[in-house]
């Protein structure tokens, strides 16, 4: 006997699927995959454009220009990430950079040099579309002036194959906040979408209180999430914390990406906020990129963290890396 599948339960399933796998895993429970497809098709019509399969890669916290003991390889992990993305069997449509592209100094000229080096490395990406949001190291000291010159606006939105992407800036006001002007803009931006629209927000800091004593929060993150709350398929991609993390809030899943410089400890553990020490046997341990698959009508999003793991190590020039997917 086929279990009934109403609109509400389909949406719940789809929401649960975010980052965990596909709707295929869930359909057998109901034995109603055909009905799910029919509902997805109806939702696609309501959203204006039906979601068609594509993938996105998130890169975060490359900190180009950083010099220090926890990251003696400098930009090597970032360069390796670019190579890995170019070698992906299925090329992503988009690359999203979620902030702290550079490590800053108090001198504008030095920051400009770091931006140039960042752009030189990023230019090797074969991906057609690259989008950026700033981290505090990119935009908090000068209010985003240099960032805008190099990368464009600090907040904006765009549509891609039925998914609405929103870039949120929670750093350039100097404090960890989005600010009332941007929140008003967000309300206006979302107003044209039905509640079922798949939405991906990408930003730098977590939009919830992950660990305020480590400055892992956004002061007005609750206001942002209240604006997003009516929408039933929201995914938030962020960086800042240099370690992977997943948190579910009402109608949304929040994914933190690994960094490309050094890792911070698990926020669930007590202790100091100190970079994990460099391990020369595993130089890219805990670093990596994130691949997001949008798989069309059967699933809004699937999320995979891709670690930069070491296969051989014989000095900086001899590093060989392999892809090691880790399913969240």
């Amino acid at each position, binding site marked *: 006997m086929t279990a009934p599948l109403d609109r509400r339960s389909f949406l719940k399933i789809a929401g649960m699927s975010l980052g965990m796998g596909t709707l295929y895993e869930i359909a057998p429970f109901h034995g109603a995959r055909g009905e799910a497809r029919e509902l997805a098709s109806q939702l696609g019509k309501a959203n204006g454009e039906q979601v068609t399969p594509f993938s996105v890669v998130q890169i975060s916290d490359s900190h180009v220009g950083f010099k220090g003991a926890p990251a003696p390889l400098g930009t090597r992990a970032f360069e390796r990430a670019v190579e890995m993305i170019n070698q992906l069997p299925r090329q992503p449509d988009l690359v999203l950079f979620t902030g702290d592209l550079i490590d800053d100094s108090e001198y504008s000229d030095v920051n400009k040099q770091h931006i140039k080096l960042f752009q030189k490395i990023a230019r090797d990406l074969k991906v057609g579309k690259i989008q950026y949001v700033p981290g505090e190291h990119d935009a908090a000291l000068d209010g985003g002036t240099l960032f805008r010159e190099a990368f464009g606006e600090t907040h904006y939105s765009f549509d891609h194959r039925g998914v609405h992407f929103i870039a949120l800036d929670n750093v350039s006001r100097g404090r960890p906040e989005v600010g009332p002007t941007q929140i008003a803009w967000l309300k206006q931006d979302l107003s044209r979408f039905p509640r079922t629209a798949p939405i991906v927000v990408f930003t730098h800091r977590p939009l919830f209180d992950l660990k305020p004593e480590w*400055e892992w929060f956004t002061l007005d993150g609750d206001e942002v999430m209240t604006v997003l709350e009516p929408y039933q398929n929201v995914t938030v991609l962020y960086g800042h914390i240099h370690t992977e993390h997943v948190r579910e809030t009402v109608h949304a899943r929040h994914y933190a990406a690994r960094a490309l410089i050094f890792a911070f400890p698990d926020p669930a553990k007590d202790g100091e906020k100190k970079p994990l020490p460099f391990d020369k046997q595993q130089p890219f341990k805990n670093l990596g990129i994130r691949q997001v698959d949008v798989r069309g009508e059967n699933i809004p999003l699937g999320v995979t963290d891709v670690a930069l793991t070491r296969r051989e190590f014989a000095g900086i020039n001899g590093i060989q890396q392999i892809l090691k997917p880790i399913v969240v």
Partner: protein
Amino acid sequence: MNIIRRILLVAGALSLFLVAFAILVFTIPPRSRSEAPGPAGRHVISVSAQKFSFTPAVITLKKGEEVTLQLTSEDVTHGFLAKSLKIGEQIQPGRTTELTIKPEVTGTFRTSCDRYCGPGHSDMHLTIIVNE
């Protein structure tokens, strides 16, 4: 004659005292003035912020005892945030920001600068220890 000499001496001493007092009042920077003891019974602690530290770095309070923190900045605007103690202030240079708190729970709390002030910003924090 002795009386006149005594009057002159007293007047001279008084003048010297007034001059010294005026020098103290008009030359001591505002921050130092803010460190003067408050009204009787009021517990006041001065905290100075500068890139990328707070001085002192650790303060110890008693649970249930009201204390006023007098916050100043030596350079740029800094933040002073401890969400767990419901503290959130901005410290602007050139003025003293007063913050009165009465901690109701014991423990160790980390207060951090929440206004990005430069490359060492993430190391800028102050520990508040609340004892019984």
